[in-house]
């Protein structure tokens, strides 16, 4: 009976295992092998080049620009979607905001429901010097706008997209933090009040420690999201002007499907995989730490 049970268990597990091997693990391994070759979908031959693609990657200026841009996304997203949204959430949860909390909650949350394409095209217009509203607003403040073209100048394009991304997703983490804050027992705050703790101290010594898990998970979500950043860049500048707003994902796509350098694209893909994998490991480790405590 025992062995029969085992067989049945295996049978039930088999589809999931087979599907994840075929569609998840096998492609990762194939991708690693492909990255050792120089080849294209339409190129005449496929030749083994060893680690050349990886060497080339770290010498490639565009790749380094992409890494830098991803880091900008990480810094911007963690600052805004963790730091600022935590502050917004605790302000919304403050006693004097309770009545209007729902209203602000909705206002902050709506942008994150929009599609990246919609937000991208809208911001392309908002940022446009000829059609948009940013330049006229700056002008009315007395700024010389003749050289300001937010998405058209290499120096300002990446930060403009990072800003747009924060506008869209800040509300999402605000909601997550709000829910977590509401789960903190009122007793703790009451006890602190009796001891005469200031609101700031309550935030630092009760809210923050109690939110450790949520902060950790949100950080991991935002960081991996920033590393995979693709759609917002694709819609607004598609990596331009020049290659100043290229991210790892957009550059990977262009290397593979525009330049037909599939081997090189595979190498970039593997690099992204390694980074996200390490972050994943970090996540699992921190869960274990929780258990041990």
């Amino acid at each position, binding site marked *: 009976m025992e062995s029969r049970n085992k067989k*049945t268990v295996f*049978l*039930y597990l*088999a*589809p999931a295992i*087979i*599907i994840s091997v*075929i569609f998840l693990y096998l492609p990762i391994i194939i991708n690693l092998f492909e990255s050792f070759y*120089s080849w*294209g*979908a*339409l*190129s*005449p*031959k496929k*030749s083994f080049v060893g680690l050349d693609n990886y060497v080339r990657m770290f010498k490639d200026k565009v790749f380094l620009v992409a890494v830098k841009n991803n880091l900008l996304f990480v810094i911007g997203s963690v600052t805004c979607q963790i730091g600022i949204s935590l502050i917004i959430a605790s302000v919304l949860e403050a006693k004097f905001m309770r009545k209007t909390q729902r209203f602000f909650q909705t206002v902050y949350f709506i942008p994150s429901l929009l599609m990246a394409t919609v937000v991208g095209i809208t911001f*392309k217009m908002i*940022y*446009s*010097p*000829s*059609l948009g509203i940013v330049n006229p607003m700056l002008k009315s403040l007395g700024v010389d706008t003749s050289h300001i*073209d*937010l*998405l*058209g*100048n*290499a120096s300002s394009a990446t930060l403009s997209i990072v800003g747009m991304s924060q506008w869209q997703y800040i509300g999402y983490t605000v909601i997550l933090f709000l829910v977590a804050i509401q789960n903190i027992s009122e007793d703790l705050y009451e006890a602190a009040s009796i001891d005469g703790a200031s609101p700031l101290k309550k935030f630092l010594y009760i809210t923050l420690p109690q939110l450790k898990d949520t902060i950790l998970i949100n950080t991991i979500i935002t960081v991996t999201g920033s590393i995979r950043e693709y759609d917002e860049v694709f819609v607004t*500048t*598609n*990596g*331009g*002007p*020049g*290659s*100043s707003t290229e991210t790892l994902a957009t550059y990977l796509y*262009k290397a*593979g*499907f*525009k*330049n*037909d*350098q*599939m081997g090189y694209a595979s190498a970039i893909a593997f690099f992204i995989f390694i980074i996200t994998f390490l972050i994943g490991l970090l996540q699992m480790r921190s869960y274990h730490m929780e258990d041990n405590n």
Partner: protein
Amino acid sequence: MKKKVLALLLVGAMMIGSLSGCGKESTSDNSASSDNTADVTEAAGDEQVTITLLNKYPEEGYVEYFEGAIADFEKANPNIKIKMENVSDAAMKDKLSVLASGGDMPDIYFSWSGEYLKKFVRAEKAIDLTSYLQADPDWANGFLPAFLNESTFDDKTYAIPYRSSVLYMVYNKKVFADNGLETPTTWDEFLTVCDTLKTNGITPISFGDSENWYTAWWVGQLNSMLVDPETLSVDYNPATGSFTDPRYEKAVQYFLDLNSNGYLGENVNSKDYYQVREEFSAGLSGMILDATSQFSFYSDALGEDYGYFKIPTIEGAEGNAAAVTGGSEVYAVSSSCKHPDEAVAFLKFMTMKEQAIKQTTESGLPNAVIGGITEATSDATTVAAYVTAEEYTNIASWLDTAVDASVANAYMVSLQEGLDSKSASEIMADVQKAAAEVAKNYK
């Protein structure tokens, strides 16, 4: 026990479902050589055949025409069914690369003529259609030769042109009249026109490069004007291209000068083509570089008020003065197509004069047949533009489809930076690097 059987069945069903997506269609009987085509046709006489078609016109106004044409064809050939998939212009290049690497090509697929098509020919993804054309001289001789030549390599024709396009400067007649301007024929006159418009506070040329392909039209045209055809064909061939000739840098410089003199308007890197052609149509600028395939847009927007002139010639330039950037869009038949006869029958139906004229009348897409653009199909300016086109002996393919994809990309990315601050020599250095990289793969 019953439960176990049920579980087994479910597991089996799931596995089959999950695996079926990975299967590749058998392609063992795809090599129907031309000498036994007669048998194939007979055998296929009453058999139901489905032909897949990858097309480039999902937009409203175009898709209706293609659906109607397919319905007409199916009515006349009840044993053939055409299954069309439409993909937008921007997505097409990616889609074709993905399909080519996946190996499951549609029976008939869209391509641009010239180097772009050549890639498929080299990879043996397109069948030689010469024998079909020879079998029907009426069909073969009906095409404007320049366009059919664009799909012919080593005397073998690999694709059938159905849409033609030639690059011109489009201008706003009213703006020109208001400023007392005449259409220029030489580059110096052209610069004078630009200068006058700029002085009068009108943007001389509408231009926007946020999608970065628009520079390829300009520089491709300047290349064909400044560089002699022999050098061009060596450099445009991915196996031998080096782009070290100093005239390429000169071509880029001519273009960058237009920008630095302010003739292309402001903030070019954050505007796209669709935005600037609206600006032109609103009378905010004097000129725009565009192809005949888009003329119906200007005729709708400006009516009689738009005109065209040949791109001004540069004095002392060594390129082919009778060359113009343009090209055709073509249909190729995949080498994995199991029913090439039926596929060709459909192509013939689509590109015979009667249907070609219908295409232009109904969808506005200019056809590629002799005498196919008339007052009945198009507005007067477009008709005149096609008469002018007969003076051109040589079509220079769009730069972005004429050269290898990564060279084209190096060109377009660097030119976008050039509109900001990068110099012509730095731009050509990027292009040369990309060309060397590509040529290495052919050795």
